[in-house]
């Protein structure tokens, strides 16, 4: 598959009379877009739109998902395929246009206990990559007939449909810059660089259930056996977040769209190694599922002839067992591994960081200790509801102070310890 990604850099994001894109300025007719969102589900009771820009004294919370507006400019399929009848076409080929630097952020009353915080300035802004994007924030509330699962599904749909609608603006606009990514069918790919080691990416997706869910072409990954993807499929939204797990290390949809390991692996594809493709797998809760999925991952890696892989985790605790099983079985099959995780080493950093361990895991990238405590200053504007600071994972009774500042673990910050290595936080022995 060959996919050209064309970026249109968003220099300005503002509300205005028309919903339009011109010379890097995205203008949104607020009433029109509110109307569009309200039509998405009859159980929506309230929709509010805000714009949050880098550097503002603005806090967004509790954040459900962050999505990048994209559109298929050429080629089959649609963004985030497989959700609706008629959009079952495979994606990852042709040309995709991206509104770069902009994101759609969904918030509203809390769904699970594990939604996050995005601060656009101050100490917290350093810890979230989404303080640097121009954010269109949707505060969406639902009626009392909705349970948590309905609520999650509605917010997921609202975020994705809005991002897709924004993406449409970029369909016929010339890109500011573009780059082509290509991975060939297995046999051809193997033949292209016969002398280079074959490497792959084992992409673990959160699937513990009870609001810890991820979707692949619209399918809940709890119910899949591991499978193979072309790396470019992910750039067109083949993987979609439905997660309400700890904010610091869940992967918002934008992280999948810009999947960092995939992009970094393409950098040396054809020079240092031959990047054969992606194995997606799940993190189910039962031991039988864990054994089956890790066996299956190893089988696929051997079947693809891989010499080495990067394995990334999503979440912590229970999925540490999946990470360790994948590592152990792959290494036993003679496939070298590099593991990507984050740490829960206690607020002082004094404890052991993972719930499971293997001596085979000799190459680990840490994306930081999620228990570190931080104080987030009060902001001039809160989009959403800051009353949840005491209850979201990483917060505690008393986290929200009377003046609006918050003291909590960085676990509460969206993307702080992202395990796909989306940004730079790490930890060392000190």
């Amino acid at each position: 598959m060959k996919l050209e990604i064309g970026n249109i850099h968003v220099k300005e994001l503002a509300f205005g009379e028309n919903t339009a894109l011109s010379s890097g300025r995205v203008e949104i007719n607020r009433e029109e877009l509110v109307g569009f969102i309200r039509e998405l589900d009859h159980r929506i009771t309230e929709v509010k739109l805000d714009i949050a820009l880098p550097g503002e004294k603005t806090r967004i919370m509790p954040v459900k998902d962050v999505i990048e507006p994209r559109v298929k400019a050429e080629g089959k399929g649609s963004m985030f395929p497989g959700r609706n009848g008629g959009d079952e076409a495979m994606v990852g080929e042709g040309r995709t246009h991206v509104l770069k630097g902009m994101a759609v952020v969904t918030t509203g009353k809390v769904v699970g206990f594990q939604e996050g915080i995005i601060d656009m300035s101050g100490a917290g802004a350093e810890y979230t990559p989404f303080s640097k994007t121009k954010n269109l924030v949707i505060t969406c509330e639902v009626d009392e007939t909705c349970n948590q699962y309905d609520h999650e599904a509605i917010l997921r749909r609202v975020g994705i449909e809005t991002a897709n609608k924004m993406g449409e603006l970029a369909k016929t606009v010339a890109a500011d810059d573009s780059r082509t990514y290509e991975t060939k069918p297995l046999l051809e790919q193997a033949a292209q660089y016969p002398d280079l080691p074959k490497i792959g990416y084992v992409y673990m997706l959160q699937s513990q259930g009870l609001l810890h869910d991820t979707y692949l072409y619209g399918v809940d990954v709890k119910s899949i056996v591991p499978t193979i993807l072309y790396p470019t499929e992910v750039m067109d939204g083949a993987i979609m977040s439905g997660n309400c797990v700890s904010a610091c290390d869940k992967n918002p949809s934008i992280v999948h769209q810009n999947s960092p390991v995939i992009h970094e692996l393409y950098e040396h594809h054809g020079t240092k190694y031959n990047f054969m493709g992606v194995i997606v797998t799940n993190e189910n809760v039962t031991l039988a599922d864990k054994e089956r999925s890790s066996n299956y991952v190893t089988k696929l890696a051997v079947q693809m002839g891989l010499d080495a892989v990067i394995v990334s985790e999503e979440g912590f605790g229970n999925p540490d067992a999946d990470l360790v099983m994948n590592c152990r079985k792959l290494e036993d099959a003679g496939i070298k591994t590099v593991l990507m995780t984050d740490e829960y080493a206690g607020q002082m950093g004094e404890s052991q960081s993972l719930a499971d361990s293997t001596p085979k895991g000799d190459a680990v990238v840490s994306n930081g200790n999620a228990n570190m405590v931080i104080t987030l200053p009060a902001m001039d504007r809160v989009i959403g509801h800051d009353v949840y600071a005491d209850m979201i994972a990483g917060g505690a009774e008393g986290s929200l102070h009377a003046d609006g500042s918050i003291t909590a673990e960085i676990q509460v910050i969206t993307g702080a310890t992202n395990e796909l290595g989306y940004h730079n936080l790490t930890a060392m022995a000190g």
Partner: protein
Amino acid sequence: MIKIVHYINQFFGQKGGEEAADLPIELVEGPVGPGTALAAALQGKAEIVKTIICGDSYFNENEEVACMGIREILDEVQPDLIVAGPAFNAGRYGMACGKVGEVAHSMGIAAISGMYVENPGYELYRNFSFMVETSNSAAGMRKAMPAMAQLVSSWIEKEGKLGTPEEEGYMPRGLRVNFFAEERGAKRAVNMLINKLEGKEFKTEYPMPVFDRVEPQPPVIDLSKATIALVTSGGVVPKGNPDHIESSSASKYGEYSIEGLDFLTEASHETAHGGYDPVACNQAPDRVLPVDVLREMEKKGKIGKLHNLFYTTVGNGTSVSNSKAFGAEIAMHLKNAGVSAAILTST
């Protein structure tokens, strides 16, 4: 210029040797003894405003009072940094320096110390201070003091954000410290992969912990003659949690009698554990600590005896080091009491 308070013992405070070890806390203006060399080395950067002198026996035998005194002094002086020692291999002095570091840490004040690597003060209190490694006797003062001064200088220059133990010359504190790397995680992973593939050197960012694997004991041959004890990390405690075992990150375990009890009830026991839904355990604590079943087995003669004490702690978020220490002590109690086997329940 930053303000430093220096903690030293009676010997280095020039009060005398062992005969002066019962000296209570004394607060002196400016540097004393080894502090003079430190002050000279830090000229222009830092000032030793006060020196605390305390006898080693006094500190260790009156720890609570001594700590209260230290706290009061720090509260009044408001130093930027506390320096303690160096203590070399003097056990009581090392323990005092370590404890002073812990007190300072609890007040948000950084501490720098120096001692021999085998000084128990390092093992116990290494989380709380940056400790320079010294030789095992005071003969090493000429090397220890410049090393501590160097670390203090670096601490000042870097505004408290010291680098790794290797870079800065302090002994590992056993802590994981966050920082922002130059490259993002995904890029570091790919670089590590390339190095691993090419057989080049690479450094893991997190050395995987090594778990203890305890060899199972031989089976109990005759259960009807065995004394069985119950031990749990499920947090079952007498109602009201008399020893205040923490709901997470437990710092202690409890030892409680079940003499004369045929079962546990909502009225008699509860769980202190904060990591699971406590409803089922609180309704019937036997679900986590099965006193009822073992009493029945005792009555039927299936086991010889149920040990009349049980041991309990909270596993939730409790560090491995604490757990290990609890385990060793509990095992010793059981052994001394002649217990043949223990049932360990978790949640």
